[in-house]
């Protein structure tokens, strides 16, 4: 086991306003090689190994979101979740100050009242505490955050021996910040991906989950998947070997299953051979019902969609989702309920396969029409930046100025998410017509009318329980 210093470490561009941590707590980062050796000694599988094993056994790996400000409470939280919820992977969800590199704010909140933080400020606590967390549980950890520039966080995570890291230059920018240019976030994430490549060469495969969930609300499947394809291609080019493509449950059973099932096909089409690619379902990411029973129906439904869609991993929600960050009990209950969907007893369940096949073809065509012009450009990252500037790439409800958000999604009468407006997306007339036909919303063009309709579509699962039978 070598602890030799790693000269490349200084090659990383300086990051943001610096850690701003209590200086006595945080030691300088160890070398990459030391971190790789540390992971080997940890005696637990990496996230990539857990995912590979889950896929081989044909079950969906389960992972909750979880993050609190205090280090002691974070330790307890992880241990309680592991003991009672039996997850396959655990999260460190990072607070939103750290995400935006407002490290001073994170530190101030940590001093004043750690409970005011909506996640664990890993950079502020430092990598040694990261290792303590890692050692406190038997399953691997993933960092979940939302940082347009995650370089310091990534270095801290690797130093902590954490083997899975969420995000991407598009998906962790547009939904999460207002004024960070895409060129900056793409460059920062290229650095992260390159580091993953270096680590892979040192023998440590980091699972890189792409946040196809985006702004989570009414995301058309082809937009989610198209952006994941672009991020995946970029990541693979930097040497990333294990990619998790996260897809947000939209709420329409066959559409969601079809979307998940496109992932292997998309990987085969667009990624170099030998890249391990997993489909990950994020349980419904829009507004959750408040009633506990309704929320649990939605949780179980999501878990079944993951299984039937062949997802390798499921990120779970809780019945407290509509209220706020869940308490430990609710988080455990969410895991335990989702685990039911893995039951060997449910192998008799079938779906409408014709409907799914049709939907799958449709999604694949939409994705192809969106990504192929970008992939054809001589340089990928600048092509992405330009495409967003012109609207040829776009997402609905962007939090950022750097996407036009001219795309308007709506729900069709059957609940499926379709394009009402495709903005500047280079979709063919055939596909545009299919979307129009599916929607056939009629309804006024008037603003108030449109907002009411959109609000109803967004709040789909707040009313889906009022009538028995199908949601609509």
């Amino acid at each position, binding site marked *: 086991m070598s602890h030799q210093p790693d000269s490349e470490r200084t090659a990383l561009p300086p990051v943001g306003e610096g850690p701003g941590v209590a200086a006595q707590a945080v030691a300088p980062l160890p070398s990459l090689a030391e971190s790789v050796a540390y992971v080997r000694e940890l005696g637990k599988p990496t996230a990539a190994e857990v995912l590979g094993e889950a896929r081989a056994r044909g079950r969906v790996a389960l992972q909750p979101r979880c993050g609190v400000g205090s280090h002691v409470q974070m330790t307890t939280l992880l241990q309680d979740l592991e003991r009672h919820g039996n997850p396959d992977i655990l999260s460190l969800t990072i607070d939103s100050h750290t995400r935006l590199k407002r490290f001073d704010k994170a530190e101030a909140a940590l001093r004043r009242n750690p409970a*005011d933080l909506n996640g664990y400020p890993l950079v502020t606590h430092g990598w040694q505490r990261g290792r303590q967390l890692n050692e406190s549980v038997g399953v691997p950890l993933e960092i979940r955050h939302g940082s347009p520039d995650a370089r310091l966080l990534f270095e801290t995570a690797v130093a902590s021996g954490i083997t899975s890291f969420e995000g991407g230059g598009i998906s962790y920018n547009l*939904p999460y910040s207002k004024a960070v240019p895409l060129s900056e976030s793409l460059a920062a994430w290229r650095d992260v991906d390159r580091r993953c490549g270096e680590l892979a060469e040192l023998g440590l495969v980091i699972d890189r989950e792409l946040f196809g969930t985006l702004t989570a609300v009414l995301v058309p499947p082809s937009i989610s998947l198209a952006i994941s394809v672009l991020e995946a291609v970029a990541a693979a080019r930097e040497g990333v070997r294990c990619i998790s493509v996260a897809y947000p449950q939209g709420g329409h059973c066959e559409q969601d299953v079809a979307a998940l099932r496109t992932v292997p096909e998309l990987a085969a089409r667009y990624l170099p051979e030998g890249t391990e690619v997993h489909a990950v379902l994020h349980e419904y990411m829009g507004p959750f019902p408040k009633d506990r029973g309704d929320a649990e129906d939605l949780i179980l439904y999501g878990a079944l969609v993951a299984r039937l869609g062949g997802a390798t991993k499921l990120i779970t929600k809780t019945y407290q989702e509509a*209220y706020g*960050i869940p308490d430990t009990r609710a988080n455990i209950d969410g895991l335990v309920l989702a685990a039911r969907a893995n039951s060997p007893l449910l192998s008799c369940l079938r779906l409408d396969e014709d409907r799914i096949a049709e939907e799958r073809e449709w999604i694949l065509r939409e994705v192809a029409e969106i990504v192929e012009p970008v992939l054809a450009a001589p340089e990928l990252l600048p092509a992405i930046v330009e495409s967003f500037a012109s609207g040829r790439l776009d997402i609905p*409800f962007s939090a950022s100025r750097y996407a036009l958000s001219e795309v308007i999604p709506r729900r069709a009468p059957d609940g499926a998410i379709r394009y009402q407006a495709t903005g500047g997306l280079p979709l063919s007339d055939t596909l545009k017509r299919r979307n129009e036909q599916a929607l056939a919303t009629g309804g006024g063009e008037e603003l108030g009318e449109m*907002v009411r309709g959109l609000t109803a579509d967004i709040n789909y699962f707040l009313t889906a329980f009022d009538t028995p039978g199908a949601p609509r």
Partner: protein
Amino acid sequence: MPYESGPQSAGSAEPRTRTVILGVAASDSHVVANHLIAHALRAQGFHVVNLGTCTTVGEFAEAHAEHPWAEAVIIGSLNGHAYEDLQELPEARRAGQLACPVIVGGNLSVGSHKDSNDIERLKGLGVDVVLFDPEELPATLDRLRTPVAEPLPVAS
């Protein structure tokens, strides 16, 4: 382009139109409610200066300096950091900035078990009105219109 809502479009508003300044708190990127509220207020005839997500107290103050006739500053916060993100509010107020009602709404603290302290401590920072349902905004704005001679008193 129904979702365009940058501050760029704000400067030219004439005092005759009722104007509000809208945005989401500094560490917060939840934008959907923000979009919908902006649309809804516009549909009611308001001129909405929408600063979007991740807006600091300083940015709200600047926007108010540009639109001194704005009836209110309306701040959404969903990620639980409302109190965090408004730490600079008392100082801004003391400096004579944001001399109009400040309305805050959304999900105002971390965790699933809320209590009234969430509201009190925001009022302590100088927030004038705390709302949860956006539908109450128009009536609240009407009510607040009753002219106030000087900045609303700031508690604590």
